[in-house]
């Protein structure tokens, strides 16, 4: 009898596959790694060999330099790779460009490692693909019933209303450099904002990378060249950490906005001095997490990181055996 833990088990380095001798999203350098997506807490430099989607490999190269790993192997979505007896297929996770779930098959057993994922439409990456499985290994960053992200178009409309209401001020939107920033820019374009969007220097390389993958971001300019008065009525996108430092003082009386799932909680917004919280997240909210588990009805649910106790309880109440792995090292949609 094959048990799931014979195929994948948690170790301090991350989820380990013994029969294939590789780790998934390890937090420390290992010989062989499968990387689900390019966020820094999942994709670290210094592994011996890395298997990932071509987009994720490109993102890692952009961030860490081309020598980020000893060997790189690209696997397009849906294209299986076999290591010893174990077959690994990367399928879209809908999280950011290149993000994937790792589908691991061995001796008739299918386990899916979701990586970070979301279920709603994102103009910058293909949607999450549900794969029937024996064990679904889910994230639970927003695994509490209070996290229910509204329609992102509503949030963008609130931003644009505020821009119209305060034409003499600039709007400074904090957004993570990989994924969130480009998604916000795309959503603004879809909402009809065709003016120049100013961007912080830390976003430029990833914006260009998204552009090369056919994601049209429209007219962008560095947020450094203009004079203070030129920023009146402007929208500026910057990494969240830039909102509170000296950098932001160049803008006229800025309205601080922050695009994050955490902005659902008013105390969180207040704590960061955010005036205009935009509840836009690249993670599944509570409804998406539970709907996904319900849809897949896996034999077992394992939860990697986040608020695992609530999701585990929900699964148990719905007769799905659940287990919290309590993996450490993954940030809660942290500071990128």
């Amino acid at each position, binding site marked *: 009898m094959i048990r799931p833990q014979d195929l994948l088990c948690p170790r301090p380095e991350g989820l380990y596959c013994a029969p294939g001798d590789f780790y998934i999203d390890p937090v420390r350098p290992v010989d062989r790694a499968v990387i689900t997506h390019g966020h820094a807490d999942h994709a670290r430099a210094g592994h011996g060999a890395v298997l990932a989607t071509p987009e994720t490999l490109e993102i890692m190269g952009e961030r860490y330099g081309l020598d980020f790993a000893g060997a790189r192997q690209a696997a397009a979505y849906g294209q299986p790779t076999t290591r010893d007896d174990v077959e690994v297929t990367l399928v879209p996770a809908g999280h950011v460009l290149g993000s994937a779930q790792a589908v691991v098959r061995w001796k008739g057993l299918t386990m899916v490692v979701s990586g970070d994922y979301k279920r709603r439409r994102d103009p910058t990456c293909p949607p999450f693909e549900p794969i029937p499985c024996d064990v679904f290994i889910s994230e639970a960053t927003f695994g*509490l019933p*209070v996290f229910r992200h509204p329609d992102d178009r509503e949030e963008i409309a*609130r931003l644009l209303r505020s821009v119209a209401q*305060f034409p003499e001020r600039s709007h400074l939107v904090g957004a993570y450099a990989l994924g969130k920033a480009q998604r916000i820019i795309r959503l603004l374009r879809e909402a009809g904002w065709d003016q120049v969007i100013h961007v912080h220097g830390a976003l430029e390389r990833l914006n260009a990378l998204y552009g090369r993958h056919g994601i049209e971001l429209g007219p962008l300019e560095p947020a450094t060249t203009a004079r203070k008065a030129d920023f009146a009525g402007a929208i500026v996108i910057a990494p969240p950490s830039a909102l509170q430092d000296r950098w932001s003082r160049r803008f006229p009386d800025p309205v601080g906005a922050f695009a994050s799932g955490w902005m*659902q*909680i*008013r*105390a969180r917004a207040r704590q960061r001095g*955010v005036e205009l919280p935009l509840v836009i997240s690249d993670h599944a909210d509570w409804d998406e997490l539970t709907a996904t588990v319900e849809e897949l009805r896996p034999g077992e649910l394992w939860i990697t990181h986040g608020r695992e106790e609530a999701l585990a309880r929900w699964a148990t109440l719905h007769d799905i055996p659940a287990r919290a792995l309590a993996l450490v090292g993954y940030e809660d949609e942290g500071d990128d």
Partner: protein
Amino acid sequence: MRAFADLLDRLSLTSSRNAKLTMVRDYLRATPDPDRGWALAALTGELSFDAVKPAFIRKAVEARMDPQLFAWSYDYVGDLAEAVSLVWPAQPGANREPDLSEVIEGLRTATRAEAQGRIEAWLDALPQARERWALLKLVTGGLRVGLSARLAKQATADLGDVPVAEVEELWHALRPPYEDLFAWLEGRSEKPSSANPARFRPAMLAQAIDEAVDFGKLDPTAYAAEWKWDGIRVQAAHEGGQRRLYTRTGDDISRTFPDILDALTDDGVIDGELLVIRDGKVAPFADLQQRLNRKTVDARLMAAFPAAIRAYDLLQEGAHDMRPRPFVERRRRLEAFVARQASPRIDLSPVQPFATWAELAALRARPPEGDPQIAEGLMLKRWDSIYEAGRPKGPWFKWKRDPFLVDAVLMYAQRGHGKRSSYYSDYTFGVWTQDAAGQRSLTPVGKAYFGFTDEELLAIDKFVRDNTVERFGPVRSVRAEPHHGLVFEVAFEGLQRSTRHKSGVAMRFPRIHRIRWDKPPGEADEIAALERLLVQMEGR
């Protein structure tokens, strides 16, 4: 409901006064009657519902979801209305989305049981968490979004480009949803009449004096000084057969103070301090509390806690509006007016003569025998000042007495709420008592949760965690021994006797003034020090 919810949401996270003004103004411009009028009533505190209790909301949500999941959610968010608004399983389309006026009319006409049913149906129908949050804040009377009633009135006045004082003066002739007010401000009709007798006149307020800066610039002979009494600032009006008593924000409290209004025999409007006065002496604030917040009043209560007004100013005398006259003239007329009423229920706040600021400072530090010993401080009023609504810069100053200080020992710490929920930020502190055998122990005398910086909070939090003796739920007791513990210098505004506190005293407005990392707890104050202060305050 969506526009109102968005407004509350933005207001609650915005600190700039100008930005708030813009938001309210834009909302009032874009929203049709009667919704905007109801919103204005809610923002100015004219509407307050306590249609439902928190326990009801909790029960309603627990009937819809797993109570354990709700408990974790509430614990995480820290605010009941917010947590419920987020987790509520919405059923959009179940009912029509209510607009604001529908909610308010619905609540005004409902019995408590009906109101509960309606609120649940509205929560089901509102698609956005923000709207559910606004609804819950409205129906639980917890609509605090950091916007003063005055700022809301300012935004309203801006619609018609008129001074806010004009709107404030009209205010008490108006009723929500203020359609006549908006019609006038938008140039569609005549100004609504403010000539209703015994209406509220917007109050003049004082600025806090900056001792380091202001005294150098002020001429002592241009100012009158009087004591700032520790009661409730009120306005009493008698006109055209109507008698009214208002708080300084214009709330009508006539019904609970018939004894005072009976004493106002002449036509006129006076500004003064509401106090309990027995045999010409001011009673402690706790006595006044016995009269406040009561719906009804009877002869027994009026006899036990005789309320009175100590008059500061005269705004109207007969048919004459005194407000454009200088204070020196108003004061002369006030003295004669109070003398004519000839009642112990209305007396005069004395003017305190002085020649130099140094002389006045000495008076403030050591008030003379009698009532001044429990005054909150001094008021300075320019003799030539007109009575001007609002808080103009320059004519009036308040100069509060320095707070009382005591060194007390940290005994218990409790987790805060919301963004402080991960810190021990509420502190109970105590002073030393001695039993008959001379054994010393600490007795709690108060609780404070502000007065320290974020950095200090981190340091105290660490101290609490490193020195925990016992835990009871969210509370920890900490080491508090003569040679080991933490001493706070606690500032407070006054003391009252209290049967609810084991120590027998209760502090008014205690806050952490300084953290005495250097001081051994054994050297903190004894209860005797507070008792002496109490006797001094009561006995005089």
